[in-house]
């Protein structure tokens, strides 16, 4: 006959032994064996002893039952704890084994780059787009008429010296050579004004060509961005304001900008725009390689559109005024990136291109 003290003794014993045994459990299999040994539904020692409680008097059964349940709850919670502990120990172990050499190179998706001239050209056009300019493009093969004539540079004009021209081997019906590779993006000024009445506000990026020997600062094949704004009431002050803003956007607000008189036959007054040298900080250090001691770096030519140019394009110069500007993209890229030889751009050496 089972007695309550007997059961209570066994319960106590089970509790002590089970907890002690659980302490020694170190893996999932041992834990499962432990669970079956004590809590197993059929042969678990706690299960068996609890079954024997049925033999007790109702009174005793209640009080023993409370204690048995306490033991059971304890074992179950210890089991849960142990299960957790084993799991995290296993994860920690796994993590220990999965250590990597974080300095090995990553497996990167293939990534190409845009040519530095494309990047610089986008930066320049973006600055003007933010000021309401539209981007248009024009032909690279041009007629003398647009490249020169419509820009107030008729045949025989001494200013043609400023534009060493690559002519095409072709003559028109009159036997004149009239096709050339545009020497600047300016012919688009005339083409745009012929096709549109003001207001006009455009920038024209594109390749241009000169019949010129190549050296560190000269290429026969380079890129310009032209700009043109024509409307009622456009003034020299607007030209300055627009180009200051451009310089701020592209070169930063710490750069100073200099406007000085210069000559281009299709503008009047004409302007040479320079920024202070960022290599010697505008000091004009005699040995500065960038500004050659002047403290200034010329970045573009500009001016108020010559009344004759407006007139030739069919725009009333008494009513409308405008300004135009043109800059060399290579020069600006060279300044921005510190490139010391223009020939890198079209040499297309991957070791150069991949730097940008």
């Amino acid at each position: 006959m089972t007695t309550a003290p007997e059961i209570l003794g066994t319960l106590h014993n089970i509790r002590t032994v089970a907890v002690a045994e659980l302490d020694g459990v170190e893996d999932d299999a041992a834990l499962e064996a432990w669970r079956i040994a004590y809590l197993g539904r059929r042969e678990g020692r706690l299960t068996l002893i609890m079954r024997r409680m049925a033999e007790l008097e109702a009174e005793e059964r209640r009080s023993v039952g409370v204690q048995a349940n306490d033991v059971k709850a304890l074992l179950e919670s210890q089991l849960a704890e142990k299960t957790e502990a084993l799991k995290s120990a296993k994860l920690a172990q796994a993590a220990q084994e999965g250590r990597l050499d974080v300095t090995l190179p990553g497996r990167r998706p293939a990534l190409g780059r845009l040519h530095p001239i494309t990047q610089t050209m986008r930066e320049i056009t973006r600055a003007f787009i933010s000021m309401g300019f539209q981007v248009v493009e024009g032909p690279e093969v041009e007629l003398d008429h647009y490249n020169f004539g419509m820009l107030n540079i008729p045949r025989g004009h001494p200013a043609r010296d400023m534009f060493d021209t690559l002519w095409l081997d072709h003559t028109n019906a009159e036997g004149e050579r009239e096709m050339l590779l545009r020497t600047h993006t300016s012919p688009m000024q005339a083409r745009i004004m012929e096709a549109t009445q003001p207001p006009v506000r455009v920038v024209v990026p594109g390749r241009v060509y000169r019949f010129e020997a190549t050296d560190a600062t000269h290429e026969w094949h380079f890129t310009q961005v032209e700009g043109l704004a024509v409307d009622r009431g456009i003034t020299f002050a607007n030209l300055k304001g627009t180009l200051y803003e451009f310089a701020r956007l592209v070169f930063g607000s710490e750069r100073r900008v200099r406007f000085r008189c210069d000559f281009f036959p299709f503008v009047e007054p004409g302007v040479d725009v320079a920024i202070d040298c960022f290599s010697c900080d505008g000091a004009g250090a005699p040995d500065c390689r960038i500004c050659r001691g002047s403290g200034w770096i010329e970045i573009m030519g500009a001016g108020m559109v010559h009344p004759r140019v407006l007139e030739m394009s069919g725009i009333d110069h008494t009513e409308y005024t405008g300004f135009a500007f043109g800059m060399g993209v290579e020069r600006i890229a060279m300044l921005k990136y510190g490139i010391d030889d223009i020939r890198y751009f079209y040499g297309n050496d991957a070791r150069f291109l991949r730097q940008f």
Partner: protein
Amino acid sequence: MAMNVPLSWLRAYVDVDMPVEQLAHRLTMAGIEVGGVERIGGWNDCYVGHVLDVGPHPNADRLRLCTVDIGGERLQVVCGAPNVAEQQKIAFARVGATLFNTHSGKVEPLKAAKIRGVTSEGMICSVLELGIGEEHDGILVLPDDAPTGTPLADYLGDTVLELEVTANRPDCFSVLGVAREVAAFSGTQVAEPDAGYPEEGEPVESLATVEIEDPALCARYTAALLTGVSIGPSPEWLQERLTRAGQRPINNIVDVTNYVMLETGQPLHAFDFDKVAGRRIIVRQARPGEKHVTLDGVERELAPPMVVIADPEKAVGLGGVMGGANTEVTEETHTILLESASFHPFNTRRTADDLKLRTEASLRFEKGWRQGLPPVGLRRAVKLMLEVAGGIAARGIIDVYPDRPEPRVITLTAARMEKVLGVTVPMADAARTLTSLGIACRMMGDDALEVEAPPWRADITIEDDLVEEVVRVIGYDDVPTAPLAAPIPLSTPDTAQAVKEEVRDLLASIGMQEVITYSMVSEHALELAYRGAEPPAPPMRAFNPISSEHECLRTSLRPGLLRTLAANQRHEGVPQWYFEVGKEFIFTGDGLPDERQKAAGVLSGPGAQASWAAAEATAGFYDAKGVVEALCDRVGVTPSFEPLDDPFYHPGRAATISAGGQRIGELGEVHPEALDAFDVRGEGAVYFEVDLAALTEAVPQSARRFRSISVYPEALRDLALVVGMDVPADRVREIIEQHPLVARAALFDVYAGEQVGADVRSLAYRVSFQAPDRTLTAEEVQRAMDRLLSRLERELGAAQRQG
């Protein structure tokens, strides 16, 4: 072209009341760029010396022993110059002075020396040693009034401005022109040089006649006559000014012509008039084949419309360029006919170009038709010639000027100034500036000026030219700065540009490097790239090509890309993916070419940078096709591909690319022989090109439309087919995807080989079945599979692959 202006010369006409750095800055800002400032002198330990005594050297016949006073100190010096004499003022260098050593050819400090046993405490210098001339036959003898003991740098030193003059300002190829700029900075006026002289001879008309045959080429010819001149070296001051301005002194008459040209900007020429036949000058066009020996001794063959100055028998000079040898001024010359004329700019320039004879005169004539200038220069030169060469000037001057134009009178209004500049300039200020520049003007009320352009400023023709004159002197810095306030013009979206930039971004983002290659290539390179195929049009050649490598406009981007690939392979190995967005130039008609904007690329080796972690695979046809598919997808275009036969490509490995029924490009594995021709190494390369205009054309007009995503699950089934080799895979996919319950079909395996048998291949698709309104049952899916199989079998002869 550069102009050297010595400050000492400039000061003859205008006060320079600012430091030279500031002067250089003001000139530069006003449009006369100062490219450099050269300081003459800066000699240390050199003084004006007084030769007290000249005696024989005890040990050398040719050497003298001199005692020189340099201001309270007497020094003994050995001198070998033949022209040293007592009481001369000379340039004396003490030991330690830095000078040009004529023996070593270097600039170095003067050392103490014993010359033939006698100690020399310094040196009496030649101009060569001082670095101010080339003479070394004798010492430099200074004027008698040179103050003994004065540092030589103070007495002889000078500053020379090196000016870069723009093409519109030939007046600044003269010291006077620059002086007017300087005067304008301080609101003063230049002191015009004296041009008055006694006219004591016969009336000039009785001594010589001048005739212009073609006033279109020579608008004006003025001449003066001097008799009884003595030819010899110019005085020191004249030689010095010429030397400092960069001219070599020749003789007094020629020096005056050069001096006055540098002073006023008007080129002049002096003839030995006794060698001019018939005392008659005829300005005419050269005859075809006419021969003439110019002053430089070169016989030149002339042709119309070059202008010659001639007498009734022969040419005596080349108009506007250079005088003739046959009438050159020599030591025997007694009578001078001085020419000061105005030649047509472009004709002068063409003559100089054709004869490859650009001179100081031609450079000045070609930059402006300044018809008012000849008498100014002429009278000034006669005045100076009388001074330095003696003789008697004939009475009056000859001035042949057949088509004298009206003076150029321009009105400048305050309103125009404000309209152009955006700032109000008081007209009184404008008037002062213009007057300082030597531009005569008078006020017309408060708001306008009537201006007459001066003879030396051919560039001033319209009101805005005057606006510039005023604002450039005031300074552009003083014009306010204002943002553009006008309304922004309506913009029209430009799809072509958007497509171009999208394509660039896409190609770079998938691992291709953008390059920009030259638009001009050699004809040979194009031939190598076409490999016998018919080019779209013959390439257009340059009339004056940069080089044979760049002799014609490219009609294909192939050569540039293949060259780039080959060049980079040499230092970076084989894997290279490049693309270019650029133009091909197709000349079909007689006018401007069709400029075809293309995106083209070349792929060689694996795309990703070689990695330790990835297996390498060589780029093949399908890599390029994938690039093209991605590129088209980026802009919403669905391309289709058809086999292409083109000798540039590997046979059977090339395709055309079409969209919307139009061909938009091509791609393929480059033929091994083409690769070889361009020195491309490795296991091959794939090339593609897409015409961006055609691609843009194919871009759907409407925005992409949203399609609702089915909430019902997809059922996936693998469908492995065996089809004949000649069955295009695209057709199989098309049929599968045409089934209404098929959402898509993805090809995941292609196999040809013994497991499936000869002349057939296996294509395996993962087919996704889905309905928009319900979950498909297994039976429905199986029925769809059966239907697909039977259609594929019927139409393409396909069979389900077994096992």
